[in-house]
């Protein structure tokens, strides 16, 4: 937008404080368009007859204003019949006056007419004063406090600006007022940019405000931000416990942003690098300008409801606070809060915090950072898969080793118990056929002497232990049974013992007529040897 057209727009409106029905707005636009082409020349031309024009005869009072410059005539011939109506309808009229305003403020203009007093109609006065005002103050910045602010249904806003001594009536038309983040509170110190005009129907002059800023920095935005933040906070929408965890490995990621924006490009670049298996579903939305907030909110709603994605990134790249404003609007905040899947916000740069950021489940500083938060890094993932593979293998091995160890412990336990009972009287009951058994034996050797021929008390106690161990052992199953000395007896083996409870291992230890005992699994048999007979070699003596 050029400064010319900006300037022109200041004149577009024909304010009508009494009738906020949008008519002024509708009238103003086409006029502005027409002027947009003609005005720069207009400002330069048509000054020649200004003085005479103003001094002309009443019946053609309006005529000189529109008179000589051919441009004007061609562009917009004016035959005012009802001047008030004309003034209302055709702001162009006012503009033509402006073209002469520079001249007419010259006091010499007055001296030219003081001999023959001219009789003005009220409308004529207002009409020309309006032209003067608009010409003299097309573009000014006024600082003051806001008094009585009214926003009509049409969207036009009417208010006053005041300081300690005076006040100034102001109007802000809907198209400009729509860009305000909020209606300023009374008493707020603001700067109003616009142009002076006269509302001819009332003869009241006023400032047509195009832009309104808080006098200090971004105060108005900040104020709007704080107000909405407080409101949402009061509803609990900003509470930390509302924040949902973002899935770590989402198969599909939703994105709400502009399809042509840098944000989308950044997000896709990051996801392609980190998690190329991801499905990305974009829901295009304009992210700045009038209506952007509604588009973003609607896009969030649809994408959230589609069930296609596990997480949604909403945001845009950096910009001015006005560019980012959609993300400070309530409708977007509520759409984020209502979204059925977690939402990551990424608006602007690190320094920009928006309401959307506060409501989102996760705030990312930039769109790229949002993408990083949304998907895992494949390099890291590959590494941890390697780690998992290793743990699986070690886990399996460790489990097996552990089971072996436990089995051995149970055997040892049983062996110890058995030995306590049997060993004092029946040395070498255990034939020790396997390594495990020998280990038990080695472990038990020192204790054997302590036990000696201990009392029945010990025996009873140890029996209980054996019983217990036997029950435990049932769980350890057959493998261990094979190793157990009791099981050996269970399988039908018997151990001969002499009266000293020593194991009789070979036939040479028997003489016919010797008395001995057989230890069976459940008791003893008292026997007498009748005869002996050696078979093959007498293998099996164990050194302990």
């Amino acid at each position: 937008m050029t400064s010319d057209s900006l300037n022109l727009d200041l004149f577009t409106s024909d304010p009508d404080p009494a009738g906020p029905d949008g008519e002024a707005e509708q009238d103003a636009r086409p006029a502005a368009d027409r002027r947009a082409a003609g005005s720069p020349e207009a400002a330069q031309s048509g000054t020649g007859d200004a003085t005479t024009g103003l001094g002309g005869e009443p019946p053609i009072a309006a005529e000189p204003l529109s008179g000589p410059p051919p441009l004007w005539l061609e562009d917009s011939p004016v035959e005012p019949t009802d001047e008030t109506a004309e003034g209302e309808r055709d702001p162009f009229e006012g503009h033509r006056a402006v073209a002469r305003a520079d001249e007419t403020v010259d006091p010499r203009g007055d001296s030219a007419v003081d001999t023959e007093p001219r009789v003005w109609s009220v409308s004529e006065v207002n009409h020309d004063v309006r032209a003067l005002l608009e010409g003299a103050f097309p573009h000014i910045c006024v600082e003051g406090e806001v008094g009585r602010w009214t926003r009509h249904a049409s969207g036009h806003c009417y208010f006053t600006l005041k300081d300690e001594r005076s006040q100034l009536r102001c109007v802000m038309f809907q198209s400009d007022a729509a860009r305000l983040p909020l209606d300023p509170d009374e008493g707020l110190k603001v700067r109003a940019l616009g142009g002076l005009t006269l509302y001819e129907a009332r003869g009241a002059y006023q400032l047509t405000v195009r832009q309104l800023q808080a006098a200090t920095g971004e105060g108005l935005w900040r104020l709007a931000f704080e107000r909405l933040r407080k409101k949402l906070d009061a509803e609990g929408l900003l509470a930390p416990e509302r924040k949902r965890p973002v899935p770590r490995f989402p198969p599909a990621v939703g994105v709400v942003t502009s399809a042509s924006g840098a944000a989308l490009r950044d997000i896709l670049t990051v996801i392609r690098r980190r998690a190329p298996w991801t499905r990305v579903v974009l829901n295009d939305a304009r992210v700045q300008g009038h209506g952007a907030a509604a588009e973003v909110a609607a896009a969030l709603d649809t994408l959230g409801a589609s069930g296609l994605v596990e997480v949604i990134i909403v945001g845009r790249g950096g910009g001015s606070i006005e560019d980012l404003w959609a993300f400070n609007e309530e409708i977007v905040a509520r759409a984020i809060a209502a979204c059925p899947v977690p939402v990551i916000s990424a608006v602007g740069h690190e320094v920009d915090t928006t309401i959307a950021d506060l409501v989102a489940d996760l705030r990312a500083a930039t769109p790229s950072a949002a993408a990083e938060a949304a998907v895992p890094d494949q390099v890291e993932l590959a590494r941890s898969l390697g780690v998992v593979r290793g743990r699986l293998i070690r886990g399996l091995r460790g489990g097996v080793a552990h089971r072996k160890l436990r089995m051995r412990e149970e055997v040892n336990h049983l062996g110890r118990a058995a030995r306590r009972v049997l060993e004092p009287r029946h040395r070498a009951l255990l034939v020790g056929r396997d390594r495990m058994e020998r280990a038990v034996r080695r472990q038990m050797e020192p204790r054997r002497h302590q036990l000696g021929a201990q009392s029945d008390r010990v025996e009873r106690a140890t029996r209980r232990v054996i019983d217990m161990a036997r029950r435990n052992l049932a769980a350890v199953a057959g493998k261990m049974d094979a190793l157990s000395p009791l099981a050996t007896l269970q399988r039908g083996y018997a151990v001969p013992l002499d009266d000293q409870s020593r194991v009789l291992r070979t036939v040479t230890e028997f003489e016919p007529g010797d008395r001995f005992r057989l230890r069976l699994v459940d008791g003893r048999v008292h026997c007498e040897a009748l005869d002996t007979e050696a078979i093959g070699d007498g293998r099996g003596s164990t050194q302990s």
Partner: protein
Amino acid sequence: MDVEAHNPEDVPGTAQGADEPTLEKRLRRLTEIVEALEADEVELDRALALFEEGIGHVQVAERLLAEAELKVEELVRRAGGTETRPLESKDE
């Protein structure tokens, strides 16, 4: 821990079907399996089955990482709902 072994490939439909476990499910399952195996209380048979399942998940996940290509779609409104279509890539 109540962890039963499953066949990592044993999912209805094709490999790309809707019932294919997501990467997240596989990784969560892997965590369970590793923890179960390391807890030392698993029967040997079950430990072996868990191990096989776990290795299966690792292999599928690694394959996924190796073969994947980013799919970018655009949500579009249709009468009676929405659908997606591939987004023409503007950045390549």
